[in-house]
C-alpha cells in the first residue's frame, strides 16, 4: 500500500510539473507578432557564470534595440546546454522545430558548436557563435558564423608578440589536453614560434599539483622566462599559486576570455597574476565607440556592474544578428539571415569595426592586455 501511495504521489507530482511546463510553452508559442531568436549556452553547471554573463550582454543589446526596423518585437528564448553537446543538440532542435526561431546565438565551447554543425546544415538555420574560436567551426559549415577571431590567428599573434616584441627565444607551454581550445592554441603557438626560430618546452596541466610544480621547477632550471598558458582561469590560478610558493616568476601569456573569467571568479587572486598578458577581443583602456559607450551605460544601469568581456560578446553578437535580420525583406527567412550575417561589413562594435566574411569568419582587432595592479590595461592593438 505504502509503495503504491509513493508511486501515486510521484506520478501526480510528475504529471503536474510536466503539465505546468508544457502548458507554459504552448502559451508562449502563440503570442503576438515577434521575431524569435534562440539563445543556447551554459546557464547552469560549472560554466554557469560564463553563460549568465553573456546573456546579460544579450539582454542589454535588446534594451538598446527592442524592436526591428519594421516595428516587430524581438523575443529571445534561452536554452541551457551546460556546455554539453547532447543538451545543445536537443536545445537546437527544440528552438527550431517547436519555437520556430529565425536564428540562433550560441555561447558554448567549440566542441559543442562543432557537434551542431551537421544539424545546423540540415535545419538550414543560421547559428552565430559568440564565444567559440576554433577555426574548424566555420570550416565547411555553411550555417555557423563566428563573432571572434579564430584560434589560429590568436595563437599566431601571441607567438609573434612573444618572439618579436618580448624577444623570447624559449617559451614554456602549459597544455590542458582535455580542452580543445587549449590544445589547439598550444599546438599553433608552438608551430608558429618554431617557424621563427624559437624553442618551446611543453608541460601538461593535467597531472596534479605536485607534478605541475615539478614541471615548473624544471622550466626554472631551464631558465625559461615566458609561459604560454592557453588554459581556463582555474588552471592559471593554480599555476600562479604554485609559482607564488617559489622564487620563479616567469611572464605568463594567456588567451581570450581568461582575464574576463579571472575578474568574474578570482578577484582576490588577481594580485598573483600581476603582469600577466593575454590576447583578447576587447580592452578596458581603449576609448569605446558610441555604440560601446551607450551599451556600457545601459549595462551599468541594468546590472549595476561595468560588465565583462563575455557580456560585450553577447551584446555585439546580438546587435550584429539584429542588423542581419533587418537587412532581410522577410524577417523569418533563415537563409537570408545567414547570407546577411555573412556579409556583415564594418559593423561598429565596442572598440572598432567588425566584418564577417562569406565563410563566416570574423575580421576584427585583437588586443594584448595585461593585469596591472588588479586592473586590466591594454598593451597593444593588432589589426
Amino acid at each position, binding site marked *: 500500500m505504502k509503495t503504491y501511495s*509513493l508511486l501515486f504521489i510521484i506520478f501526480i507530482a510528475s504529471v503536474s510539473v510536466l503539465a505546468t511546463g508544457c502548458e507554459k510553452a504552448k502559451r*508562449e508559442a502563440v503570442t503576438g507578432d515577434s521575431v524569435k531568436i534562440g539563445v543556447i549556452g551554459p546557464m547552469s553547471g560549472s560554466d554557469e557564470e560564463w553563460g549568465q554573463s553573456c546573456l546579460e550582454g544579450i539582454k542589454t543589446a535588446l534594451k538598446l534595440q527592442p524592436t526591428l526596423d519594421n516595428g516587430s518585437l524581438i523575443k529571445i528564448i534561452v*536554452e*541551457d546546454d551546460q556546455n554539453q553537446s547532447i543538451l545543445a*543538440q536537443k536545445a537546437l532542435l*527544440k528552438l527550431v522545430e517547436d519555437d520556430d526561431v529565425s536564428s540562433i546565438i550560441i555561447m558554448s565551447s567549440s566542441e559543442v558548436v562543432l557537434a551542431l554543425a*551537421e544539424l545546423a546544415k540540415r535545419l538550414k538555420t543560421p547559428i552565430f557563435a559568440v564565444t567559440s574560436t576554433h577555426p574548424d567551426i566555420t570550416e565547411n559549415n555553411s550555417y555557423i558564423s563566428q563573432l571572434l577571431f579564430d584560434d589560429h590567428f590568436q595563437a599566431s599573434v601571441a607567438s609573434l608578440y612573444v618572439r618579436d616584441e618580448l624577444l623570447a627565444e624559449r617559451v614554456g607551454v602549459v597544455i590542458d589536453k*582535455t*580542452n580543445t581550445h587549449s590544445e589547439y592554441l598550444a599546438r599553433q603557438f608552438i608551430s608558429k614560434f618554431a617557424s621563427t626560430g624559437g624553442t618551446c618546452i611543453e608541460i601538461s596541466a593535467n597531472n596534479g599539483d605536485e607534478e605541475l610544480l615539478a614541471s615548473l621547477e624544471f622550466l626554472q632550471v631551464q631558465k625559461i622566462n615566458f609561459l604560454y598558458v592557453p588554459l581556463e582561469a582555474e588552471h592559471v590560478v593554480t599555476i600562479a599559486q604554485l609559482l607564488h610558493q617559489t622564487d620563479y616568476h616567469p611572464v605568463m601569456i594567456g588567451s581570450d576570455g581568461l582575464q574576463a573569467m579571472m575578474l568574474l571568479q578570482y578577484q582576490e587572486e588577481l594580485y598573483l597574476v600581476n603582469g600577466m598578458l593575454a590576447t583578447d577581443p576587447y580592452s578596458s583602456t581603449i576609448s569605446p565607440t558610441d555604440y560601446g559607450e551607450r551599451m556600457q551605460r545601459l549595462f551599468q544601469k541594468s546590472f549595476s556592474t561595468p560588465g565583462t568581456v563575455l557580456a560585450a560578446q553577447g551584446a555585439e553578437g546580438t546587435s550584429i544578428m539584429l542588423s542581419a535580420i533587418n537587412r532581410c525583406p522577410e524577417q523569418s527567412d533563415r537563409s537570408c539571415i545567414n547570407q546577411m550575417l555573412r556579409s556583415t561589413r564594418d559593423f561598429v562594435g565596442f572598440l572598432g569595426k567588425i566584418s564577417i566574411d562569406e565563410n563566416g569568419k570574423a575580421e576584427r582587432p585583437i588586443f594584448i592586455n595585461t593585469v596591472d595592479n588588479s586592473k586590466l590595461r591594454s598593451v597593444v592593438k593588432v589589426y
Partner: protein
Amino acid sequence: MESNRPRYCLGLLIMFMVVFSLGIERTANDYILAIVSFTGINIILAVSLNVTNGFAGLFSLGHPAFMAIGGYTTALLTFSMEKKPLFLPDLPQWLIPVHLPFFPALLVGGCFAALVAQIVGISVLRLKGHYLAVATMGFLIIVQVLLNNANSITRGPLGLNGLEEFTNVSWVAGWVVVTIYTCWKIKFSSLGRSMLAVKEDSMAANSLGVDLFYTRNFALTVGAFFAGVAGGLWGHLITAVTPGSFSLIMSFNIIVMVVVGGTGSITGSVTAAIIFTLAIECFRPLEENFGIYGVGEIVISLVLILILIFKPSGMFGTGEPKFVTGKYKQLSPTNGK
C-alpha cells in the same frame, strides 16, 4: 508451470514498437523524434546496466566508458571516406580503407566494448562493493584520457564530428526490443539465477558450484555490449562523439534510472528511463519561463533521495510486475523453475 504472459508481453512490445516507430516517424517533428530516440537509448543503457548492477550486484560506474568505446568504434567504421583525410590526416594506414555499413559497425562497436569488458573484468572483478565502484570509475577516467590523447584516431578533446545521421526511431526501437528480450532471457535463465545468487551471497553461491568469476564477467560483458551499441546509436544521433560526453555525470544519470526503477527489475529500468528522459525535457519550458536553469537535475536528485529513503529497493524492487510476468511476483535464486 511457466506463464505465457512474458511471451505475450514481448509480442505486444514488438508490435507496439513497430507501430509506434512507423507512426511517429511520419507524424512528429525532428525535436520529438530526437527525444524519443534519446529515451530509447536511455532504456538500452539502463536495462544493460541493470544486468551488471542489478542482476550480478556489481556496482559499476564504468558504463559510459563502454559506451564511449562502442561510440568511437562505430564512428570510425562508418566515417565517410571523403572526410577521413580532412578530419583524420594522421589516421593509421590500416584504418584508412576500413568502412562498414551502420548495422555491422554497431555490432563491431558492441563486440569491441564487450571484449574490453572481458579484459578489464579479469582484474577488476576480483574487487567488491565500493572498491569495484572506484576501480570502474578509474577505468572510465583511463578511457577518457586515452580518447583525449589519441589525437590521430579520436581528434583528442575535439572529438569526431560530422558523422552520418544514421540513427532514427526505428533503429533505436529495434535495439530496445533486442536489449529487453536478451536481458529478460538472461534474468529468467539458470545463469540469471546464478547472477542473483552471486549478488545475494557469493560464498553460498560458490559452495553450490556457481563459478563466481565467469558469472560476474558474463554480466559485465553483456552490459558492456549493449552500452557499446548504445554509444554507436548515440554518436550517430547527435552526429558527434567527444570524450567529454561520456562522463561521470552520465554514469550517475544511468545509475539513478536503475536505482529508481529497482535494481534487478527490467520493467523498472524501462519505466525510470522513460520518466527521467521526458521529465528533463518537460522542465525546459519551466526553466525558460522562470529562468531557473538546472531545475531538472535538482528534481531528479530529490526524487532519488526520496526513493532511497522511502523505497530503497526502487519502484519495482528486484522483480517484475505481475501484469508482465503472470504468476511470478518476485525473483529469487530459489523460486521459479
